[in-house]
């Protein structure tokens, strides 16, 4: 009885993880430029991978496999943003222009901005 329940709940997690991975892929195809595509990809790498791994942990129960899945989740959570940051910074560095609706990068240097300091140019 309890096995069936755990199976059902973990099934819900795995399926919804799969759903968000699919959404990330759809977003990747629909977004107009590199930076907006990265936002779509981050749905896959956070919620998609997270829910999928939680579902798999339920399948594995209290075993070493679950512990390894926890390590996997921690690895993703710590390295994912690092990789995204490196990719975005590299793209900006080589001059890939983001499609922007609004550019507020100089807001702290304006006289009416909240920042009193005159910082370096981004």
């Amino acid at each position, binding site marked *: 009885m309890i096995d069936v329940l755990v199976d059902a709940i973990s099934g819900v997690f795995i399926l919804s993880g799969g759903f*968000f991975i699919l*959404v*990330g892929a*759809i*977003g990747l195809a*629909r*977004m*107009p*430029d590199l*930076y*907006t595509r*990265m*936002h*779509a990809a*981050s*749905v896959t790498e*956070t*919620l998609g991978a*997270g829910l999928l791994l939680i579902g798999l942990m339920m399948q594995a129960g209290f075993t*070493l496999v679950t*512990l*390894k899945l926890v*390590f996997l989740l921690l690895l993703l*959570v*710590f390295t*994912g*943003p*690092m990789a*995204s*940051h490196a990719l*975005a*910074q590299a793209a*900006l560095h080589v001059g890939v222009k*983001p*499609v*922007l*609706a*609004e*550019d*507020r*990068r*100089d*807001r*702290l240097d304006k006289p009416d901005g909240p*920042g009193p300091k005159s*910082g*370096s140019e*981004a």
Partner: protein
Amino acid sequence: MREVSLGLILFFFWLALSGHYTAFLISIGVITTVLCVVLARRMGALDSEGHPTQLFYQALTYWPWLAWEVVKSAWSVTKIILDPKLPISPTMTVVEGSQRTAVGLATYGNSITLTPGTITTLVEGNRLTVHALVRDGALDLEGGGMDQRVTQFEGRS
């Protein structure tokens, strides 16, 4: 103190990944752990940045908070992706981190990137340049809610 904590974590990691508890493998694990701790110490990696033990306690409440933020923003990005009109308004902005340490600022930058819809593209001093999928996401960060939460996580250490 950091030596002991790193050693325990590494040995636990070894045991968990090995799964074989014979005397031979456990002693190999002990030797490996000691070797790693000695090397980390010689490299000068065992400081408040390389092994931030002072943050472990705060992380217990910060991580669940961050996880919930991630879920909320992932859901809003999902709705945008599945919307036939694709209502995006990409915005770049700068925010100032109020953290005092490099670990705190890195945590802030990584938390921004981890939440779907915002990516930290550049960190200069305590200024973070952020790309947001929608204008509201950028304004939200400018409001400084996450900044304050990360500074609280960083603590006074």
